[in-house]
């Protein structure tokens, strides 16, 4: 006899856990199935940036709704998730770049989004005293911040269980079939039946989608990060660049996390990645130029997380275009951590009520339909 649930959530990343929690909060009974353990992949090992800054217009509403949850995260999950809000600063490295930033901020204002704010040279130095002299200004999003990714994912998992969700780890989904109005989810530990299924399988989500005859052009990527040993506090906001790939932040314990999108080679079937030191050396050189104080800092660890990227760098969220009762939530293209809390809430609303107030236009899977 198959187990039954209201919703089967595939994938125990932050997105899967968040959706499971919000479903449980709405009185539904979700079963979450995770092939490894919750937070083993992108959600547990990412840079922890909670950023609204520099997002594509299409995902700004989702990002803003998520931010509101982040600011009350402890009330939701019973853990502050290490969240601290010191802003994110996008640093311009030239006058030309600065002019582009100004145009973007003006455009956002016209659309009614006010979270991005242009800052001049003086304000930039006030926000980021250690920044190199060659930078003429930047953009700040003051409510942005950073959190502890593994702790956050675990907190969502724990609270979801407390609220009635079932979380099954070390179990892989191997097939999906329709039986009447139910979906039968085959797993390595027996079948589960439910009327609704959420595909939050991260870098493996294309496999779930193709089980439904709904192939997607998902690219498996492995963004790399490095972290230093503990340093004296010298920078509060998260710093990002546009021309060169860099994201840079000092955590409360003094360690500095350096990332920005240089990629390792992923081997998703082995849960492994192979780092590319040549590219990390480019990151090191960028930090060297931007923050002279960092030159003698020691790098103690480097790693990469396995993540899904879509060709347009936008996530796939919303109902399946081919299969009734299936919902997609993947392809966060290396910037989905901040979106986790809000996307879970939106998905739960969509599943429970059939509609959502958060605009998700342009994020549906149908944009990849053949022809």
């Amino acid at each position, binding site marked *: 006899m198959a187990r039954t649930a209201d919703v089967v959530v595939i994938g125990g990343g932050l997105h899967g856990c968040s959706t499971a929690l919000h479903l449980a909060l709405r009185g539904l009974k979700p079963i979450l199935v995770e092939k490894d353990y919750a*937070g083993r992949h992108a959600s547990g090992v990412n840079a922890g940036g909670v950023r609204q800054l520099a997002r594509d217009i299409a995902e700004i509403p989702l990002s803003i709704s998520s931010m509101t949850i982040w600011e009350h995260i402890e009330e939701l999950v019973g853990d502050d998730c290490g969240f601290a809000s010191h802003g994110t600063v996008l640093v311009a490295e030239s006058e030309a770049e600065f002019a582009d930033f100004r145009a973007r901020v003006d455009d956002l204002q016209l659309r009614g989004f006010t979270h991005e704010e242009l800052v001049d040279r003086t304000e930039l130095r006030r926000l980021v005293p250690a920044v190199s002299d060659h930078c003429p200004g930047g953009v700040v999003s003051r409510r942005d911040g950073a959190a502890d990714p593994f*702790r956050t994912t675990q907190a969502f998992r724990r609270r979801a269980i407390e609220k009635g969700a079932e979380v099954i780890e070390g179990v892989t989904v191997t097939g999906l079939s329709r039986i009447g109005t139910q979906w039968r989810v085959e797993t390595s530990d027996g079948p589960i039946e439910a009327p609704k299924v959420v595909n939050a399988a991260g870098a493996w989500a294309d496999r779930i989608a193709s089980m439904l005859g709904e192939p997607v052009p998902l690219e498996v990527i492995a963004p790399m990060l490095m972290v230093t040993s503990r340093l004296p506090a010298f920078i509060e906001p998260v710093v990002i660049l546009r*021309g060169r*790939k860099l994201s840079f932040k000092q955590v409360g314990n003094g360690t500095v996390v350096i990332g920005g999108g240089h990629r390792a080679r992923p081997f998703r079937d082995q849960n492994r990645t192979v780092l590319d*030191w040549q590219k990390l050396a480019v990151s*090191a050189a960028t930090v060297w130029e931007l923050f002279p104080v960092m030159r003698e800092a020691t790098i103690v660890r480097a790693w990469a997380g396995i993540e899904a990227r879509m060709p347009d760098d936008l996530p796939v969220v919303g109902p399946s275009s081919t299969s009734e009762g299936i919902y997609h939530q993947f392809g966060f293209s290396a910037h989905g951590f901040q979106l986790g809390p809000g996307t879970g809430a939106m998905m739960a609303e969509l599943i429970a009520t059939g509609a959502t107030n958060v605009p998700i236009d342009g994020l549906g899977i149908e944009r990849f339909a053949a022809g």
Partner: protein
Amino acid sequence: MTGPSDLSSSYDLVVIGGGPAGLAAAALAARAGVSTVLFDENPGIGGQIYRGITSTPIKNRAVLGEDYWAGASLAAEAKASGAQIVTGATVWSLDPSRQVGVSIGGEARMIQAHRVIIATGSLERPFPIPGWTLPGVMTAGAAQTALKAHGLVPEGRVLLAGSGPLLWLLAAQLLRAGTTIETILDTTPRSNWLRALPHLADFLLSPYWSKGLALLREVRAKVPVIPVQRLSAHGEGKLQHVEYQSAGKDYRRQADMLFLHQGVVPNVNLANAAGVAHRWSERQLCFEPVLDVDSGSSVSGISVAGDGAGIAGGTAAVERGRIAAIAAVRAVKPSASVPDPQSVRQRLQREELGRGFLDALYRPADMFRLPEGETIVCRCEEVMAQQIHDMAAKGCEGPNQMKAFLRCGMGPCQGRLCGLTVTELIANERHTRPADVGYYRLRPPVKPITLAELASLPISEAERKAVER
């Protein structure tokens, strides 16, 4: 001194580690005409056992003993073999495609190897007792290194504590150098004798037997040896006294230096980060790489030789280095003439004969592997045993999750001094086996490097462009 600019961009064979295994491997391969480079992060070659072999200030041969001086010919052979030997060279990365990241004098290079022999040896098993982080408390190996490489001997009230052959060797060497050792606190559980008995016959045939016995006699004649069941170090800012329990009674003793030792375990960091599969050895209570008869690992082209492949000692390491090198030569240059591996294997078997007895006799007591309460487990991040117990009780199943919650293993030593303790504590709390709990998933850099070093990696303009948006 060899600098980064003296290196080629690729070699047939890269040997990592310049102890007996690495030296023997490099010598054999280079003599067979295979282009070979050997890296060791220490200022000199020799590894732990032959530390300082080309430079030791100790001229009286009796102090370190003839077994030490046997290293001189090994070092000379390696030097004469044509292998490029680079000391002060830290290998911080190795990946499954055999790219080797190495740092020399503050500059980093990536080197491509056709074959790699990891010969990074062992390190002393963590000895997490209360107070083991106090200045004045060191490992027995540290005292040995101070003596061999620098001609330094401890002064003041000197205590040794723990168990294992190396502790006795250190005691003998210190005594010959004129040091007064106040006491040896022997933590070997008495019941171990019974477990070791079945292996006695083999041990009697091994070269360890007579040497070991002579060493014990030499030391016991000069130093009182007290069996202890409990041990802790105390002091304000540095070691001042030691407390121990012997035959049910508690004692306290003033001390300036305490040297701890309870055996050695493979240093798995580099192999683990390169993706080499490891397994738990119940006999030696540690993780060791899974290897084939030629020392080949689960990663093609990478082999592990010497104590890093499982503890067997220095002379066995030489033979194991040769076995790995023969396989490397055959792969790279099949026409070269190499010794018959079968005869090397036979010598190795003889060397390994006594191991079963020693492993059983010197199996460290649970008491000294499974700390409690406020005893520090992770020295770098100062994580206490109780925190690990609590997290495991709350459901934390493995060292990687533990790391994410408590930061244990996240400091610069990258889990070398807490990894086994954390694994065993979790297994104990959750009533499973260390084999099921597993070890830290390690990532390069396996040794910290400075941002400046990393930025010094030569990067072509094309590569720089390729990674810009």
